[in-house]
């Protein structure tokens, strides 16, 4: 919600609207002020001119100083002379006064104005708004011309005029309405323009976002359609170039990786033929070593041992390259896991050296790949025997996870010094050689890596840790799929067929 409000579209609309409002309001206000001033100025000039003319024309007809009736008829005469019938006139002489309309209180006339007329001896006017109606009040002292026309003398007679400015007010109101009416379409136009501009910007931006996401999801052949020649088009073009470069690099990397993988597989494979010949005769060498002189016997046994190791290493390499090539498949079978583990230990002669804690026969069954389970268990136990110290323990138990379902947990621990903290994160890496305690090993350095791959193939996890009482603990958790559950990896076609 917040994100939508702070989006580009909203920001553009707000900005455009603000600009439109400021522009229309400023223009309107200035226009209004000038027009209003013009209208009022003109009307008041006319009124004052008329008023002055009228007074000047009429004053000589009256006796001075005026009496009350004279004042009354003077006021009446002045008011009648206005082009408009709405003139209200007040004539005042000293304390006496008379209005053109009987009983008119002349409330518009302020004391300050009277004062000003009396003292300044000039025509004074004021716009007064009362009860929502504005009117123009003009005050004028009647003066006598002085000698030689230089000095004017106040006669004491003051004439005041009130003219309602209804017409002018109407003009001004119409002006305001016009400005208001002009603002609404301007605002609407601004919003429309903002939306159009936002659309013009947002469409390429959205396309760019989609394309970036698509690239991130691995579709490296994603490209944008470039239209026009603006900055956004430039951006799209740059994106396309970057994507093409990335695609090229990734393809090159993949090619190199595939080449390296194929090379490892080919080398391992080629090693098999000479090794096959050597392995076949190692038993012969071992048997005959007893009858040879010491040096020759040692040399012969050494060759025999190393041949066996080399054969193991090549086997492991082949297995790893199968995992790398994605050619390793699961052959799931419903088996008794405890029995399977027992067989693994028995076939390698470890039953007496490993302390086991296994469930009752038949208590823990599950669908796993028996051959791969054998590799997992054998590698972990071999690792413990090789690098740890006795006693090596193997514990197998079932675990019910509310999310993952029933799982088998295999725990292999030893009584050694444990694994140094710096080594722990790398213990499953290929060929990882740790400190002196775990250096020169009989293994290929691939056993735990192969274990990890086999566990992963089952959709399980493997982790290494140190026991609080010393020694390393390797824990494998394997999901036990009930019959019919889908395996994570395609099963061999023959089984599907059967």
């Amino acid at each position, binding site marked *: 919600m917040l994100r939508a409000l702070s989006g580009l579209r909203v920001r553009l609309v707000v900005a455009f609207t603000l600009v439109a409002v400021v522009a229309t309001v400023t223009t309107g206000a200035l226009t209004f002020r000038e027009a209003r001033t013009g209208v009022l100025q003109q009307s008041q000039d006319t009124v004052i001119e008329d008023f002055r003319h009228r007074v000047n024309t009429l004053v000589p007809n009256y006796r001075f100083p005026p009496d009350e009736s004279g004042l009354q008829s003077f006021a009446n005469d002045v008011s009648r002379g206005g082009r408009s019938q709405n003139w209200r006139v007040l004539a005042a002489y000293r304390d006496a006064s008379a209005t053109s309309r009987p009983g008119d209180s002349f409330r518009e006339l302020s004391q300050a104005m009277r004062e000003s007329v009396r003292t300044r001896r000039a025509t004074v006017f004021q716009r007064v708004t009362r009860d929502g109606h504005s009117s123009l009040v003009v005050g004028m002292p009647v003066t006598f011309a002085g000698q030689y026309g230089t000095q004017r003398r106040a006669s004491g007679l003051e004439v005041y005029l009130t003219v309602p400015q209804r017409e002018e007010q109407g003009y001004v109101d119409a002006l305001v309405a016009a400005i208001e009416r002009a603002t609404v379409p301007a605002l609407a136009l601004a919003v429309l323009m903002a939306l159009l501009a936002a659309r013009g910007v947002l469409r390429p931006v959205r396309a760019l976002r989609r394309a970036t996401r698509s690239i991130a999801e691995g579709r490296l052949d994603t490209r944008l359609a470039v239209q026009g020649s603006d900055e956004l088009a430039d951006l799209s073009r740059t994106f396309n170039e970057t994507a093409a470069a990335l695609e090229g690099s990734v393809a090159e990397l993949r090619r190199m990786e595939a080449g390296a993988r194929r090379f490892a597989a080919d080398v391992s494979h080629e090693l098999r033929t000479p090794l096959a010949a050597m392995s076949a005769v190692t038993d012969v060498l071992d048997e005959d070593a007893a009858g040879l002189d010491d040096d020759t016997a040692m040399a012969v046994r050494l060759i025999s041992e190393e041949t066996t190791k080399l054969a193991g290493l090549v086997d492991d390499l082949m297995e790893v390259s199968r995992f790398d090539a994605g*050619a390793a498949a699961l052959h799931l079978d419903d088996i008794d896991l405890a029995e399977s583990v027992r067989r693994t230990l028995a076939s390698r002669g470890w039953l007496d050296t490993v302390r086991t804690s296994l469930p009752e026969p038949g208590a823990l069954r599950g669908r796993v790949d028996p051959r791969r389970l054998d590799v997992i268990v054998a590698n972990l136990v071999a690792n413990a025997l090789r690098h740890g110290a006795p006693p090596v323990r193997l514990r197998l138990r079932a675990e019910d996870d509310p999310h993952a379902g029933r799982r088998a947990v295999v725990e292999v621990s030893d009584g050694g010094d444990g694994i140094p903290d710096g080594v722990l994160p790398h213990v499953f890496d290929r060929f990882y050689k740790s400190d002196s305690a775990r250096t020169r090993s009989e293994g290929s350095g691939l056993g735990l890596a192969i274990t990890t791959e086999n566990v992963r193939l089952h959709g399980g996890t493997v982790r290494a840790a140190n026991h609080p009482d010393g020694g390393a603990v390797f824990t494998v958790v394997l999901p036990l799929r009930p019959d019919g559950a889908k395996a994570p990896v395609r099963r061999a076609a023959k089984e599907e067929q059967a």
Partner: protein
Amino acid sequence: MPRVLIIEDDRAVREGVRLALRRQGHEVAAAATGEDGLEQLRTFGPDAVILDLMLPGMPGLEVCRRIRAHDQVPIIMATARGDDTDIVVGLEAGADDYVVKPVRARVLDARIRAVLRRVGAASGDHGTPRTEHHGDLVIDRAGLTVTHQGRPVALGPSELRLLLTLSASAGQVFSRQQLLEAVWEHNYHGDARLVDACVKRLRAKIGEPAGRPRYVHTVRGFGYRFGSR
């Protein structure tokens, strides 16, 4: 003294295996090509054949098929390619067992003795002599012959042993592991591929329609069960 024929193109491997097996007490003949191997099969008359999968000229798979066409001698495939597909293809071509090179002489010897035991056990299975009828399938346990719709079926030692094991307890489900032990006598576990490949071969030979087996039924997740219909 078992007579073993090695068909292997690589001279070092051929000589090494020949030397090692001779030391294990076998009488050994060796051939460098498939054609030579087929010739020696006739003249030498081995008890078991160790066959390399990759041979120049006639490939190992073809040699295997040709041997199986008229001979039920046990065949152990020796392959440098340990990939599942290679093994399965080899087994389906008719091999009784396979070993992935490199292999120690003692292991090879154990495998040879195991297949020979199987043949011996099958031919020496002198239980109550009788002939069983399972639909169109007739199994003569004493004469070790199998006929389907009156026609004799030529079964390899593993196939015959598998059929005898399954049919001896018709209706019972055997896991692949149980069959491995009963038929192949492997005391290590795992290679369920052996069982699957052998079942496939057996089904083909006794004319099971694809996808609707009448005799050897698959029990998903467990193994196989014998039963006519």
